[in-house]
């Protein structure tokens, strides 16, 4: 925030007010402009937030939300006392970290590569193709994964037999040891295309003069990619990284719900799938809300930490 000259504020309120009125006279249009957005956020996002208190109450749909008895942190204690939740939390952390490390950079690399395609028709074709998996639900993707990996009728088996392999084919969908890789790779494959859209939009906003200047300085293709394209994407990458970090604890319910099975559950179960099972069988709104609040709070903490580091390294990149 622009600093208002502090030394004057206490002693001479009139001057402070005068300055403020002056500012408002000049910039009132900006406030008029942002008013609808702020109203929207307040009404549709902040008003329902009293729902978060469900996490601290013993809530049932049959009682009014405001009458439900307060139970303090009981719901959180309940959650953390369950060994199955601890298992889900542990898996959740690992899957989230893998998805962040391997999944976050991939759309950036992909957009840089797409941007290197010279033929504009081919370029458009590639772009359209890579977003396609995003339209197909995980249930359907799983159907295809099953068709590929099935040990009795899958494509892998057919391929292996063609190459002369006899005997059993291990089913990667039931191997505990490697299932986290299946989760991460299929996640990257499905979401990378959509992830390129923001980057490509940012790339197309880059001033072409910069490339010419770099070329004149003797920068080759990869150097241009590094020094011009990637450098220009920096602020976009950072903003998206903050968003991603904030959602860290949401490790992909739809995906894991669709592709996991009981043989790999011990390594695939995450908070959301666990809470889903709780809710399904036990109608635990309060516990589900508590779990959600926990996930969000961790996200918030991670954002603050990231922001702190960002500010230390490079003050411009911090968002707060």
């Amino acid at each position, binding site marked *: 925030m622009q600093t208002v000259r502090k030394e004057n504020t206490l002693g001479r309120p009139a001057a402070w007010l005068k300055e403020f009125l002056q500012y408002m006279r000049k910039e009132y249009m900006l406030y008029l402009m942002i008013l609808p957005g702020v109203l929207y956020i307040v009404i549709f996002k902040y008003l329902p937030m009293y729902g978060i208190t469900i996490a601290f109450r013993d809530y*049932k*749909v*049959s*009682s009014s*939300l405001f009458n439900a008895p307060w139970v303090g942190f009981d719901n959180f204690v309940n959650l953390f006392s*369950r*060994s*199955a939740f601890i298992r889900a939390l542990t898996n959740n952390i690992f899957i989230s970290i893998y998805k962040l490390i391997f999944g976050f950079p991939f759309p950036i690399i992909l957009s840089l590569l797409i941007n290197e395609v010279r033929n504009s028709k081919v370029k458009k074709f590639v772009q359209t193709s890579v977003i396609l998996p995003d339209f197909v639900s995980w249930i359907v993707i*799983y*159907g295809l994964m*099953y068709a590929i*990996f*099935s*040990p*009795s*009728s899958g494509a892998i088996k057919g391929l292996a037999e063609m190459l002369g392999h006899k005997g059993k084919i291990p*089913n990667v*969908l*039931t191997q505990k040891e490697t299932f986290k890789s299946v989760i991460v790779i299929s996640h990257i494959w499905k979401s990378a295309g959509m992830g390129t859209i923001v980057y490509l939009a940012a790339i197309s906003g880059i001033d072409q003069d910069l490339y010419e200047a770099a070329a004149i300085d003797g920068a080759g293709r990869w150097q241009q990619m590094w020094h011009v394209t990637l450098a220009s994407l920096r602020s976009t990458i950072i903003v998206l990284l903050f968003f991603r970090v904030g959602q860290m604890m949401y490790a992909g319910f739809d995906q894991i719900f669709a592709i996991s*099975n*009981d*043989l790999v*559950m*011990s390594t695939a179960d995450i908070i959301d799938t666990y809470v889903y*099972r*709780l809710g*399904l*069988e*036990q*109608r635990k*709104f309060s516990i589900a809300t508590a779990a959600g609040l926990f996930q969000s709070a961790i996200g918030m903490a991670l954002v603050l930490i990231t922001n702190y580091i960002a500010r230390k390294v490079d003050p411009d990149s911090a968002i707060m």
Partner: protein
Amino acid sequence: MRKMRKNFISGLSLIVILSLIFALASCSKPTEGGQPTGKPTEAPSETDPAETSEPVNEEPVELSILMSGDNTPSEDNIVLQELGRRTNTIIKMTYVPGADHATKKSTLAASNSLPDIFNTSGDEAIEFKEGGFLAEVGDLIYKYAPNIIANIGENLEKAPINSDGIYLVLDARLGYIRQLNMRTDWLANLGMELPTDLDSLYKVLYAFTYNDPDGDGQDDTFGLCANTNPNMFATIFGAYGIPVNCNIELEDGTVTIWVKHPKFLEAMEYINKLNKDGLIEPDWATIPTMDMFGKLWNGVAGAIEWECVGPTNNWMPSRYTEDPVPTFDFPIIKGPDGSHGTPTTYMSLTSGWAFSSNCKNLEAAVKFANYCMSEEGNELLYLGIEGTMYRWIDKEAGQYELLGEYKDSATHRASGGWVYWYLFAPTHHTEIRTFNKQTQEGVALARKISIPHVYIATPLQTRLEYGADMDQLINEMYVEMLAADGDLKSIYDRYIGEWESIGGTEWEIEATKAWKAQEGN
């Protein structure tokens, strides 16, 4: 640049104009929605008062109903119209996809806008009752609903939720019972008989897998298909006297889960061997349900554990890809001590239909429910309008034919047939009555040899608290034992130990107590 700007400005003005038009158009909508009586009020003029048992001149009553399922009947379909005419009601049906029914109901309940009639069960039903959402309809039912009394009988009052008045009209339907469906054409090809015990069952499944039962010269068949649900082996567990997925009473009187049956390990050894020897279709751990059925439909598997309603009735003949279509029979597999059969199904004491306390005319709602539970009412909801949509060939034997455009099941469904039939369905409902002969016999056979088990009607606190965790452990134990190469006992001990420590022991105590109390009555 200038051109671009101009384009943009004209684009913007277009947006503004469109928004205005849209705003005006939308303004009229809420009012339209606010007067839902506009169209339906014409209905009574068409009604011949003499046809209904209602007194002349009585206005039809509006009833809102929430149902779920995966169909797309049109809002003003002829079946609902006909039902409305016959019961002197105007039905406002909200029909949501099955997967989101619970969420929808929760939001409706939380905002105190539950419809007049909806289904509910277990913990939710009790919560609704305690919250004052359910209407007490005891007097009305005894006065106006003989069909409900006839179908549900004493269970109506036996249900714990109805201990102080009738709040829940229980589901009168009984679930179908599983049995082994085995291909007799394959048996004939192999010159084998229907198996009768575990040894002959193994031999048949082995021959189905390795002796080319379909005679196509390829090694592409398996004994049976399964998924990760233990009830895909209900008959085998039954031969060891174990009611799969149900609760049991041990000799010392303790009530516990089925996997603690003394013969469980023995049964698992048998199933584990089937898997090791390759007699079970190897995709069982990851297969989607439809693909599992597909293994039967395509002639990959020679047997499936399922309600025979699927293999011999509903899938027959159009789902099978072979020509001629396979034939089935239902072997009875007896264990070493002669045990056989699969878990029976009891009439639910915890799930059913409820009337909202918001309902303005409970009397009409109860009369409506009573009509739905009649033979005539259920026929209308299942087969549609007699004479228009179908006609009976032989009503006794349950043979009918669809008429005209309704021969196409999609049209039939869009007109309301086969969609709402479980609404207050009677015990001997139209679906059962219209099965083919083999299926009717199969359904009866499965029930005849079914094995009893512990059915506790009161919600148990320990289950509400630890149920999901306990179930998941048992699921994981089961698949691990099924797929294991080594010693099953150590897997079993590890999981059961954990199960007991996370609430299992506590649950056993509560369940035993509840069962004793229930049996005492």
